[in-house]
């Protein structure tokens, strides 16, 4: 981020989907015009419809559109945008893009490239954190020259171990190895996966922590180096290293642990000269020891839960910091409790297979302390080429049990027709005794998988039969009588109809 004060008069959002919509909303609240970018697959996506301006950046594949420095910077210049918000994913943690923005005289709303460099490669991040006195999981800081040396190191720290792509993120390229015999083939597979996914075959290894908790600390820093933490988020409800449900406060954290982890997270951020919103992820073992996992140098998907318990608008705060304003807040204890779930166009019963397609009907949950951050609308077709997350629902309540009840209620109000979603699965998580109990680790979702899919309500099954038969009966009756649908309501006359009709024509 260019140091100093920059007015920020128009923001280009280098992203799509719900996060692009989320950023447009904060910009609009701040009175800042927005520029959307879109690939050919997104011409009628919600973020394009909501933005003030919109520029095409290429064909559907991300590499040719949402990852194209040149096209995005061209759109910024064409529209006169003086700042770019990267959202999460895509170019949000790409230091080269940050430098390209700087070279083009455009404010990148995020940390400086140097902080990304320091945290980007996981092995370098580990080394930097060890230097700063931040506890890390036992493991290697440098790639190994050969599989033999890697294997020897694994034997030294003891199995099971975790192989991780040094350049990766989001759970891709990760592989757990249980025993020595499996090591060599797993190593090669991890290297090839890392190369395919990130263009970099560097793999490192860490001691595998048995069913740890994933707890992360939100940090925020201004350009003057004032750095605070905004408490934690519990993200242990994961599937294939993808978070599914997040909450704050973490049900396992004491105020003392929160203070200790917060202090370490702030130290980590300061060690790399961090600016803006960032997240320090930790693993917490059974003994409540915590270890630095990685730092996400961007806004997180799950930032709304922190917004609920702090009252802050983190996107607006990012923009204010990027303008050179000082932090207007400090660390305070979380107020109440917040939970977020990620709604996906996917079928949990079919191994979570994505389920793109047209949303034919949509009714979103609402009412007190329920928030829906959506990237879709009724009639929208979820495309096949991008991440299938369509929405995030978050709730707030004074206490965790109330927040759980509210989220279950909110999910019961969520109606999406035309595509399969994971809403039922999310509801099952919120009702599962391990989740309700609060002491769930990263092994929870895999362990509970069949329980989360399996619970069926037979009384409702019978109601479904009744509904199907009534529907068939009425259809048959209509066919017989060639009449219009039976309905409790008559369709009204012409929409937006005119109050006073003239005899025009």
């Amino acid at each position, binding site marked *: 981020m260019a140091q100093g004060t920059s007015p920020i008069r128009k923001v280009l959002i280098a992203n799509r989907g719900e996060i692009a919509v989320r950023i447009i909303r904060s910009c609009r609240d701040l009175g800042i015009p927005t520029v959307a970018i879109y690939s050919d697959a997104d*011409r009628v996506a919600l973020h394009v419809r*909501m933005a003030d*301006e919109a520029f095409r950046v290429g064909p559907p594949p991300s590499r040719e559109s949402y990852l194209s420095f040149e096209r995005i910077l061209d759109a910024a210049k064409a529209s006169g945008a003086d700042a770019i918000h990267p959202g999460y994913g895509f170019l949000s943690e790409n230091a080269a893009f940050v430098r390209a923005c700087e070279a083009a005289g455009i404010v990148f709303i995020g940390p400086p490239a140097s902080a990304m460099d320091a945290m980007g490669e996981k092995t370098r991040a580990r080394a930097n954190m060890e230097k700063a006195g931040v506890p890390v999981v036992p493991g290697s800081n440098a790639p190994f020259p050969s599989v033999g040396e890697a294997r020897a190191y694994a034997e030294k720290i003891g199995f099971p171990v975790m192989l991780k792509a040094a350049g990766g993120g989001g759970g891709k390229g990760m592989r757990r190895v249980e025993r020595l015999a499996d090591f060599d083939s797993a190593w090669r597979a991890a290297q090839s996966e890392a190369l395919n996914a990130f263009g970099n075959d560097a793999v490192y290894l860490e001691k595998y922590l048995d069913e740890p908790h994933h707890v992360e600390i939100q940090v925020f820093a201004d350009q003057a180096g004032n750095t605070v933490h905004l408490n934690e988020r519990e993200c242990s409800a994961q599937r294939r290293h993808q978070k599914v449900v997040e909450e704050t406060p973490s049900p396992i954290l004491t105020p003392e642990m929160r203070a200790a982890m917060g202090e370490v997270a702030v130290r980590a951020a300061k060690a790399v000269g961090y600016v803006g919103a960032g997240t320090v992820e930790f693993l917490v073992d059974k003994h409540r020891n915590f270890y630095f996992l990685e730092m996400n140098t961007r806004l997180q998907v799950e930032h709304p839960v922190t917004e609920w318990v702090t009252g802050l608008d983190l996107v607006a705060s990012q923009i204010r910091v990027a303008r050179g304003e000082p932090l207007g807040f400090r660390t305070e204890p979380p107020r109440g409790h917040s939970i977020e779930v990620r709604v996906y166009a996917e079928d949990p019963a079919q191994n979570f297979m994505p389920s793109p397609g047209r949303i034919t009907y949509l009714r979103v949950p609402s009412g007190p302390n329920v928030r829906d951050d959506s990237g879709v609308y009724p009639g929208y077709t979820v495309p096949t080429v991008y991440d299938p997350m369509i929405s995030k629902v978050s709730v707030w309540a004074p206490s965790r049990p109330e927040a759980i009840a509210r989220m279950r209620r909110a999910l019961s109000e969520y109606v999406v027709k035309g595509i399969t979603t994971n809403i039922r699965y999310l509801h099952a998580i919120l009702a599962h005794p391990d989740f309700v109990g609060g002491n769930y680790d990263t092994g929870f979702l895999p362990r509970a998988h069949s329980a989360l899919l399996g619970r069926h309500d037979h009384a409702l099954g019978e109601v479904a039969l009744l509904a199907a038969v009534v529907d068939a009966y009425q259809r048959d009756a209509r066919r017989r009588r060639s009449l219009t649908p039976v309905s409790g309501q008559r369709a009204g*006359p012409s929409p*937006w109809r005119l109050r*006073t*009709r*003239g*005899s025009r*024509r």
Partner: protein
Amino acid sequence: MNGSKRYVTRVRGARESVPVDIAEQDEGNYVLTVRGRPHTVDARVLDHGAVSLLVDGRSYDVELDESGDEVQVLVGFELLTVDVADERAVSLRAGTAGFSVSGKVVVTAPMPGKVVRVLVAPGAQVTEGQGLVVVEAMKMENELKSPKAGTVIAVFAKEGSAVEANAKLLTVE
């Protein structure tokens, strides 16, 4: 690519009609010319009756509702009723009475209700916007106003009587 086609538009309440020329470049992309100024327009019609327009790079989310020859257009907070006709239709219409709020206008009940008061008698001169009849519906009294200046030529509404939606209340000429 097609040649240019001319449509004549008229916003309800406006005094003049505005010709708009449209030339399709390729599917969904057009050049539209209004009052001599050309606009590059990328337009995608959505199933439910909305259009996403990119006009010279600016994004407009437009909701449409067709009713007869007119279309109701909602863009931002502006709601307009637009009559769109191609040139042939306009010339056909030229011989008829239509295409303006001239002539006889029948004021009808917009919803079921009860006539509370009739404010004018046959023969009365009224101005545009002057109250004509008060109808009670949804527990509220609603004053129906004259859509034009003119003379009340017939009154069908009776005080105290129930009326159905679209019932004729009176005629102004």
